[in-house]
């Protein structure tokens, strides 16, 4: 019989052609699963979508008309790689609203904030270089880090953002090995996915660390303006004055993600390199998208929509927090963000949220399992009992119903667990004698699981 090695097979012919960096970015059951969340019957608390339904249609119409009337030739033309000057001026205006004095020459317009992350990684990271991110980190940044073959070191965050004490320890450890990280990537305000905000104290210390050690910090700040309670904090960029902090911004949350308009603001040598990299990637960001920004800023006060959107999101956040209190088990905990789009929930540790999602999908509700926000070896055990919940994309009643359904599947899982570990008997007897004991017996069950792991 003619024996044929797979290398001769069609499939293998392609497999051999792929570059190493393309092998780093993995497909996953999770990604495939997420594709069934966009069915209309599914309440999706998974995506990070801002509300675009409430944007005033007549305003949008007049913006389009204005754009076509005044910029038709330019918007159909190629534009400068770094972006058109009026848009860069608008970006400086938006940054000024957060107390940052930005020089338009140090701004590079990008195709969404996503390209900003990709370009920075492209120009700074050699294969095998170390970078530092938060744990959990923005999952959307991970493919860029992986495809440029960065070695990511993750630093835990808590309710006050990145643990700068752990960061310093890690930097010392790396220094002892002769390793200098290329950058520290952080979303300090209303972090994605955790929703937490870095405290002022830690912001100051992080900027000091960067300066003392001459390390670059990528401050990714898509949500800074989406604050619903509490006092605004200075950005890292403001505290640093533009020496070591590279600022990544976007119009996605203050206007609309459909435009794919973001930017990088940073030291001019870095911007110059990014400019060259952008020319290679896409020559320039979409002309119509840029002129749309320009016309929009001409026609309206951009803060008005931010204010309207913030009103919508605040009420949705509150609805989600209330629903979590009501429907999630007592053993669960979650962050209480003062802004942004996400709440991060941590469930009892026997619950694997990737498994839970498949169950939740049968109840027509979706969320993002937390595992994707951790970069360790697969499967990374960290984050397996966590989930990211988005509250900006769906109205209050759907949020409440969605959380109720998730709470229900969690309860089913817990019930099954109690049945298996025999814990239900303890609970039952205790429940009769002393109901308050039940939490103690739950801890006993948890201990058992720890021994198992």
């Amino acid at each position: 019989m003619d024996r044929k090695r797979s290398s001769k097979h069609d499939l293998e012919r392609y497999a051999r052609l792929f570059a190493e960096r393309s092998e780093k970015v993995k497909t996953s059951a999770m990604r495939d699963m997420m594709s069934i969340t966009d069915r209309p019957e599914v309440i999706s608390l998974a995506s990070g979508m801002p509300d675009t339904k409430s944007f005033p249609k007549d305003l949008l119409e007049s913006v389009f008309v204005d754009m076509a009337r005044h910029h038709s030739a330019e918007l159909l033309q190629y534009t400068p790689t770094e972006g058109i000057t009026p848009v860069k001026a608008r970006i400086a205006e938006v940054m000024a609203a957060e107390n940052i004095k930005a020089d338009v020459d140090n701004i590079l317009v990008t195709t969404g904030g996503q390209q900003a992350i990709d370009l920075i990684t492209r120009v700074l990271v050699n294969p095998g270089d170390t970078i530092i991110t938060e744990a959990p980190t923005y999952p959307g940044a991970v493919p860029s880090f992986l495809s440029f073959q960065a070695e990511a070191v993750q630093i835990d965050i808590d309710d006050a953002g990145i643990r700068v004490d752990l960061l310093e320890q890690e930097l010392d450890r790396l220094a002892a090995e002769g390793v200098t990280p290329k950058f520290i990537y952080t979303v300090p305000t209303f972090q994605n996915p955790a929703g937490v905000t870095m405290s002022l104290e830690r912001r100051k210390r992080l900027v000091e660390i960067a300066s003392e050690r001459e390390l670059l910090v990528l401050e990714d700040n898509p949500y800074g303006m989406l604050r619903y309670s509490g006092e605004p904090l200075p950005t890292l960029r403001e505290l640093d004055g533009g020496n070591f902090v590279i600022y990544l911004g976007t119009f996605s949350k203050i206007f609309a993600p459909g435009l794919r308009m973001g930017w990088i603001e940073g030291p001019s040598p870095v911007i110059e390199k990014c400019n060259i990299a952008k020319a290679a990637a896409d020559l320039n960001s979409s002309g119509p998208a840029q002129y749309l920004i320009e016309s929009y800023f001409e026609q309206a006060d951009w803060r008005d929509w931010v204010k309207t959107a913030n009103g919508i999101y605040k009420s949705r956040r509150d609805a989600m927090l209330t629903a979590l209190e009501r429907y999630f088990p007592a053993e669960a905990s979650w962050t209480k963000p003062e802004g942004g789009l996400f709440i991060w929930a941590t469930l009892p540790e026997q619950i694997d949220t990737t498994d839970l999602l498949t169950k939740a999908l049968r109840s027509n509700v979706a969320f993002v399992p937390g595992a994707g926000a951790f970069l360790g070896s697969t499967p990374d055990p960290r984050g397996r009992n966590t989930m990211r919940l988005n509250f900006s994309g769906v109205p209050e009643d759907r949020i409440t119903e969605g959380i109720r359904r998730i709470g229900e599947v969690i309860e089913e899982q817990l019930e099954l667990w109690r049945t298996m570990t025999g814990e239900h008997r303890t609970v039952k007897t205790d429940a009769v004698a002393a109901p308050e004991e039940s939490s103690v017996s739950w801890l006993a069950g948890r201990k058992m699981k720890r021994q198992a792991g």
Partner: protein
Amino acid sequence: MKVAVLKGGASMERQVSLRSGARIAEALRAGGHEVVEIDVDQSLVLNLREAAPDAAFIALHGRGGEDGTVQELLEIVGIPYTGCGVLSSAWTMDKSLTKSLLQKHGVPTPRFVAFGESAFKSLGASDALDQIESLLGFPVVVKPARQGSALGVNFAADHSEMPPAILSAFSYDDKLLIEQFVKGREVAVSVLDGEALPAVEAIVRGGDFYDFESRYEIGKTDYVCPAEIDDAVAKRLSAIAVETFTLLGCHGFARVDFMLPENGEPQVLEVNSIPGLTQTSLMPMAAEAAGISFEQLAERLLATAQSRQAYPIG
């Protein structure tokens, strides 16, 4: 011929199905057929009526598509369809039913027990866990009974690893099986028109188990086709595959997955009534090794829609 290729749907294997469907549609078009691709949803019947195809090619995987549901619907609306009928689809979808039938007829399959979530919840099945464990011995494999692509499959090396494995399997289905772990090579034999195609061996790089990622990510798994095995073993695999196919009442085609231990009989793990037809799927590879191109395979699979004896549902 006008063919409706049914793909997508809402199962966990939606993306895999979209890839299978697109590839089949392309091959059928190349073969001169008029093809309508239908992403299966609530409008399926309306879409089918509108398209009025001569036959339906079912490129669905997992629940809804592979379990007899769509087949039943197609019989109601009177459209001939590819592959297994209602009963054999439902039967093969459930690993525990499949294995029970095989056991009864002496076809080798690893020892197992199966039960539903309700047995746990209301009948105290968890109290029988120690008995199950001593019956099967560790390690065991815990699987959802009706889920494809190895989703929700977990190993348990000892008693303490059972609860997480069971919890995981029950996330995918309300019925699971606990199976004796058989160490060996993963080999699949596709059956086409009652005849076995050459066996394909899947060897995952880095010695991992053949899970979802290694199944569908190009370059993660080495496939050897025909598998490098003794002729006697190859014959035995073919014979068992055909016997399994017949016992389960399969029609047209199916894929039988085996675990091949170092010594001893090949063990049937499961039967797929709609094998994957993607770039990395095993059945197209087996066909190619038998000298059947993908276009020819598509044609032969389509022909199974016409060869079925139509029968009303009883």
